[in-house]
């Protein structure tokens, strides 16, 4: 079984977010980058599935060379090989076209993504890849098992979940619960250094959107403390001062 896992390289969850003075660029200096947490779940699942069926896990990342450290970490967790599309990830449309193009040339049985990247928060790349390849997409997959020629997935929906059966290939976005996070062991870390990491050039894609500016939320004003004896007044306050209840 051939599995492709799409990896994004994102600021650490505790990183302070700063932008350039003109607000157009994210300032990455001093920021630690990590493998997007949901992608780590997707990767852990892929490694388990491949181990069970003697398959192969390839990771793909669209981005600049700085991400190679994150890609090596993914190799240490257990991916077999890696592909980097050598271009800044301009937007989700650009990323999805690069990955779909790679898959057209190198078919796989399934494409696993994270349900959302923690920087763009789009949940768009997986669905776009599936549309470009005209294959099913299960965006909020909480579990995945193989049953013969099909995959059975639990997908989160409004107010509940649905059980889905899909033939391969398909795209899934991994949610919490799909797999246990794997911690790379020493052997994994050693072997990751020599696993193949191929760099390919991007295809051209029309630009349909562009970030004009970033901004930060206005900090909240100081907290209003309510003494325990007066806790019961909370709801009256929420009504009269904030009108949220």
């Amino acid at each position, binding site marked *: 079984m051939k599995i492709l896992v799409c990896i994004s390289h994102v*600021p650490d*969850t*505790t990183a302070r*977010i700063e*932008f350039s003075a003109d607000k157009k660029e994210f300032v990455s200096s001093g920021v630690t980058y990590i493998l997007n*947490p949901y992608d780590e779940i997707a990767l852990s699942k892929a490694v388990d599935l491949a181990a069970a069926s003697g398959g192969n896990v390839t990771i793909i990342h669209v981005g600049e060379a700085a991400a190679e450290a994150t890609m090596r970490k993914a190799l240490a967790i257990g991916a077999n090989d890696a592909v980097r599309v050598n271009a800044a990830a301009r937007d*989700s*449309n650009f990323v*999805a076209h690069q990955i779909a193009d790679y898959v057209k040339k190198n078919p796989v049985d399934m494409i696993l993504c994270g349900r959302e990247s*923690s*920087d*763009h*928060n*789009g*949940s*768009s*790349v997986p*669905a*776009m890849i599936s*549309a470009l390849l005209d*294959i*099913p*997409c299960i*965006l*909020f997959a909480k579990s995945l098992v193989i049953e013969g020629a099909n995959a059975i997935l639990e997908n989160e*929906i*409004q*107010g*509940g*979940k*649905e*059980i*889905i059966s*899909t033939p391969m290939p398909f795209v899934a976005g991994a949610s*919490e*619960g799909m797999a246990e996070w794997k911690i790379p062991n020493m052997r994994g870390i050693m072997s990751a250094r020599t696993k193949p990491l191929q760099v390919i050039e991007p295809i051209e894609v*029309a*630009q*349909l*959107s*562009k970030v*004009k*500016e*970033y*901004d930060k*939320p206005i900090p909240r004003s100081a*907290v*209003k*403390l*309510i003494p*325990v004896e007066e*806790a*019961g007044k*909370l*709801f*009256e306050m*929420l009504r009269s001062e*904030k009108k*949220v*209840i």
Partner: protein
Amino acid sequence: MSVLVYIENVEGKFKKSAFEVLSFGAAIASHMKLPLVALSIGDVDESELNKAGKYGASKILNVSDDKLKSVNVQPYTSVVSQAAKAEAAKVIVMSASFSGKAIAPRVAIKLNAGLGENVIDLPEMSSGFVVKKGAYSGKAYAFVEILSDVKVISMMPNSYKVVENETAVTVVPFTASLDANDLRLVVKETIRSSDKVSLPDAEIVVSAGRGMKGPENWGMIEELAQILGAATACSKPVSDAGWRPHSEHVSQTGIAISPNLYLAIGISGAIQHLAGVSSSKVIVVLNKDPEAPFFKAADYGIVGDAFEVLPKLIEAAKAFKASQN
């Protein structure tokens, strides 16, 4: 030309998010001086469809097909794309619900349109078309210009007020052609906990963390939520420990929410937790530790023991609700 909104139903009923999308679409349509067309897919009866007529649409396309009874991303994408073409839609809007998040990017690809996903405000349309969305997990906003002629938008639930705007509306059947490829994926079973308020749509969320000590103490959380008509949520360690289902886990690696009111009980306010809840309009924190980081992100704070304060809050909420009726 038109503005097209896809309005999602849950088991034949429109939820608030459908009316938000209609109101949002109506504001864009009025700015662009275009008619607003709504699209409903699934099994929705006449009286329910008429409800959607109260928010400014001049036409409702009704797609009722046995094959489309449950939301299935592939064929739904085909239907929305075909309707957009039939109505020469310039802007296509839908809710960033679980299924909307999967459908919108696919529609954008099919129509070669730019996508503005998880949008939290009306687009700026005076020069160009710029949407506002969250970025860096609640720590920032991005203003994204959509450069294409046709634009697809998914809007975050709870980010736009429902505005009534009664116009003459006609319901017309619409048929889309689906091929076998569209129907490869099969929804075998749909499981909904119908008695509960769904978390992403909830206006009020009562959320609790490890400070509650164990699953046996969640009765108070559920009772408070029930009185307030709120959804329940929890921090990550709570769902990791199996005290609560994963579907309640909010924030960075759970669901990002932006309710009008977020009540956090026994949650420390770690940065990963704040990431997904900080866009809530009002935050109330109950924690016994005055140094808990959450107080810095809160509008109201109660420093106290949850086991002592919660019963008081439950009584007060009951009295408050009773005084409102």
